[in-house]
């Protein structure tokens, strides 16, 4: 049973990273590791910034 739960949880985590759900966590990691000057973005600010940057930098989707 444990193995099933772990498997499902692993799959959920995988799908999460695939969709980019962990982007903010990765941003924080990077921020801490690189010792940025300036203030860190809050989660809300980060997602706004992420979406707004896509506006000026569109990514193609394939056929």
């Amino acid at each position, binding site marked *: 049973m444990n193995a099933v739960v772990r498997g499902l949880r692993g799959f959920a985590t*995988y799908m*999460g990273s695939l969709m980019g759900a962990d982007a903010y966590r990765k941003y924080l*990691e990077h921020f801490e590791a690189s010792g940025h000057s300036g203030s860190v973005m809050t989660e*809300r600010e980060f997602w706004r910034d992420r979406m707004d940057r896509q506006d*000026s930098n569109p*990514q193609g989707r394939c056929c």
Partner: protein
Amino acid sequence: MGKISNQSGVAEGLDPTLPPPAVDDSVREAEERRWTPAKIGLWIAISLLGAVAWFMLALVRGETVNAIWFVFAAVCTYLIGYRFYSKVIERYLLKPDDRRATPAEYKADGKDYVRTDRNVLFGHHFAAIAGAGPLVGPVIAAQMGYLPGTIWIIIGVVLAGAVQDYLVMFFSMRRGGRSLGQMAREELGVIGGTAALVATLLIMIIIVAILALVVVNALGESPWGVFSVGMTIPIALFMGVYLRFIRPGKVMEVSIIGFVLLMAAIIGGGAVAGTEWGAAFFHLDKVTIAWGIIIYGFIAAILPVWLLLAPRDYLSTFMKIGVIVMLALAIIVVRPEITVPAFSEFAGRENGPVFSGALFPFLFVTIACGALSGFHALISSGTTPKLIEKERQTRFIGYGGMLMESFVAIMALVAAISIDRGIYFAMNAPLALTGGTVESAAQWVNSLGLANVNITPDVLAQTAKDVGEESIISRSGGAPTLAVGLAHIMQQFIGGPGMMAFWYHFAIMFEALFILTAVDAGTRVARFMLQDSIGNFIPKFKEASWRPGAWLCTAIMVAAWGAVLIMGVTDPLGGINTLFPLFGIANQLLAAIALAVCLAITAKRGVFKWLWIVAVPLAFAAVVTITASFHKIFSPVPAVGYFANNQAFSKALADGKTEFGTAKTVAAMEAVVRNTMIQGVLSVIFVTLSIIVIIAALLATIKAIRAGGGQDHEDPPVPSRVFAPAGLFPTQVEKKLLAEWNALPAEKRTQKAGHH
């Protein structure tokens, strides 16, 4: 051996306090070359199974062939291609060096340049390259029988498609994630680069237009489809608002909510279409739907990304992975028997009703995505290279990702050929041939004289009823046929015949979702390219945030693909029949351009001995597309040549005829004259631009060969400070090295190389 940028410099710059960022070359080579009996046995088994599967598909001529052999033939060939051929490319042509940091490491910014787990990135890249293309091309190509398409999809991907994706991704990664257009300009000079840019822009317009045409054909006169696909817009808007204002960053949560709503929309669509007002309100003809998509496309492309594009992209990714896993399971569990012949009666002719033209070259352009798709070069350069963690992972992500898409194409082919051939032709032939009613369609199909085909009007009517549609006659474009095939397989897997209508609309829904995302994203990308080009003359246009410029350029792009779309929808010859080859040609020309750029880069790296790895697919793509273009331009057969058709109809008009061929009115005849002229001119422009690019690349290549190499435009090497395995599973030596890294104190391990 040719010269590769100074790797020794990297070796000296490595941090001595860290474990090595790469498995030692000699250790890795030793492991790769160690053939244990178990390993040998495994590869013999794979080869034997693959050989048996190909034998069953290609040589055994029984009444039927089981679908499972398609799966085995594909998977075994992919495994062999991946293990051996892509390894050759890696070892002798690309020579990745894990001691070099990737852009995700040396340009790390926590936003665009982020080291991403290889398995996650594999899924991410796959979701970006796979869309509706591999789902519809093989369906349309099934007109010629299953074997030509199967061979091209499986062999083509191993020798051409996956090679292109891999090379472009690697070269872009070595250049900090530069786009194909930028690489073309750097490697081929101003003329070649400009031609590549213009060709890319035009090709994008054609591709968006024809994808939109597929959706229009799938939704025309289908109240259920119009309702459920229409509902994706409010669902996406809701998700966008939710993510922006209510719970930012909860991507999984909102995707699951969106998915549930989507299912509700499909089920609700059946109920709505069943009511009198619903059937009346959502019953739209194709021209109305086409205008709807054009208006939608414009609005979607100027709305902020967070409101519509991003949430729909989440839904699309979610559906994509789900659908493909489910379809693979269903085919393996159900194992349908295929009655379609290996080569059909149309394999040797050039006047097939589904698409016109001879097997060579038109089969090879009809199936573009899945075997060789130039559009991928735009994805492989750009987003993905900025996320790669280690250089060696490009083989898994680039080459492997494309193999996965090819597998999707094979499954689409299997789904499409699992339905009766009579139904297939009734669904895919233009209205002008089938007549539009079940009686006339059945009569026409039976008159084709196809072996083992004897369809009755009742069967056609019953099939339409099963999938919850008013009619399935002349639903060309591939998507509806695939949906019927998928419904046919899936109902045997889950739900029984009562679920067929749900599965049909489920399939239509996900295809529409993929396509609308591609239309929206394609319009945006094209708009930026146009803004950038105009910006060279009027600098104000380069400012992405300048609204009038953005709106004007969006309008121009939408008008361009919208015009082609309307032309396709109103074409008396059946839009798909004449336009789909143009789509394939455009896509393959882009592939030729991408491969030409790769050829020049490879030659400049000085690896002449292995140049054929790029030259062979380039030559094939160039021959196929240029031949196909020449057929379309010069063929005297009106069904094939645009200008021949143009002349035939012009002459008929001049003779005062009021109907000619499939055009029943003077207005329709005039439409044919206009359409064929536009299509012909587009063909001429495409092929000219591509020939310019290919010649520029060949000149650059010859120059590099004479000089023994050329200037490389790679970013300067930076020593890497991280390690990750190259493939799906870590090898023994990689595990050992990983253990060393994991043993490091946490503060050293998380250290990023980004900011020196």
